[in-house]
């Protein structure tokens, strides 16, 4: 499944993406913010804090994802899956939504207290949920 138009994607799926993102950010697990964007850097849906800065973040995620994939190709370590950033005041995971050919990306920000294993798990679950709903819609 591929998407040729970010505006159309936003119009058709932003509501559905937002529902999944809100489940993440209101779960109480330690997720602070979440975003879905296109691989060329357009935000589609956001939830949580700093929502106003997500336009710029979408472009950054797009670049990082592409650079991560280039590193994977250069070092011949298989297929790019996700990118993890750890900082003093939080952590961030960026991953491609399965079934979208890498065209749709999920970015999630969590508090430093959230354990990496559970952080990764909830991100993957959200990706799967978005993917299932996308494929359901597309079917």
């Amino acid at each position, binding site marked *: 499944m591929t998407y*040729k138009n970010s505006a159309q994607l936003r119009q058709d799926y932003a509501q559905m993406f937002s529902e999944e993102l809100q489940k993440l950010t209101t779960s109480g697990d330690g997720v602070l913010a979440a975003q879905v964007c296109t*691989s060329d850097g*357009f935000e589609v849906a956001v939830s949580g804090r700093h929502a106003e800065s997500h*336009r710029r973040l*979408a472009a950054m995620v797009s670049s*990082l994802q592409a650079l991560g994939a280039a590193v994977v190709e250069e070092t011949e370590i298989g297929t790019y899956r996700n990118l993890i950033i750890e900082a003093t005041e939080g952590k961030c995971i960026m991953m491609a939504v399965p079934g979208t050919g890498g065209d749709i990306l999920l970015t999630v920000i969590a508090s430093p207290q959230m354990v990496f294993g559970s952080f990764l798990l909830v991100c993957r679950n959200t990706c799967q949920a978005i993917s299932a709903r996308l494929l359901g819609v597309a079917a």
Partner: protein
Amino acid sequence: MMPEQPQEHKILFTGTMGAGKTTAISAVSGIKMVKTEAANTDRALFNKATTTVGFDYGEVGLDGGHVLRLYGTPGQERFSFLWKIVARGAIGVIILVDNSRPDPFQDLALYLDNFKQFVAIGGVVIAVGRTESHQWPSVSDYCAYLEARDLMLPVFAVDVRQSEDVLMVLDVLFNMLEVSDAESA
């Protein structure tokens, strides 16, 4: 006399989406290019399948073992955060202008403003593309535009698919920087 140590120089290619940055580097790179492309979902801006979202990277080997490291930036302004990052350590910039765009002067102004540190040292060459199908503005018009901004920068009409055109622009930039170095020494 000791032989000169091989040196490496970093040069940027920038300009609007679709101006030909990836094509230009690809035309001259002696190594397999690093590309960071994503599906283009903004066909209204430029109708092509993919767009650079990280940076392009290629190399040109020179006599004496010197190497030019060529970096291509993403074109869209939303990636301007990356322009600053990629520009670190560069010695000069080639601004590609697409003459088929509605307002090429406005496009040029965006990149002159964002890479003004290179403009200040005379490390910028302007390469105008698609002039075979869009003859206006002419190279003279660009020169007049730059003069009105109190800038003296070289402008060339180029076809970035042709390696000799890209190498010529690189050669001009490199020579300008050498002259600038010699004058400041």
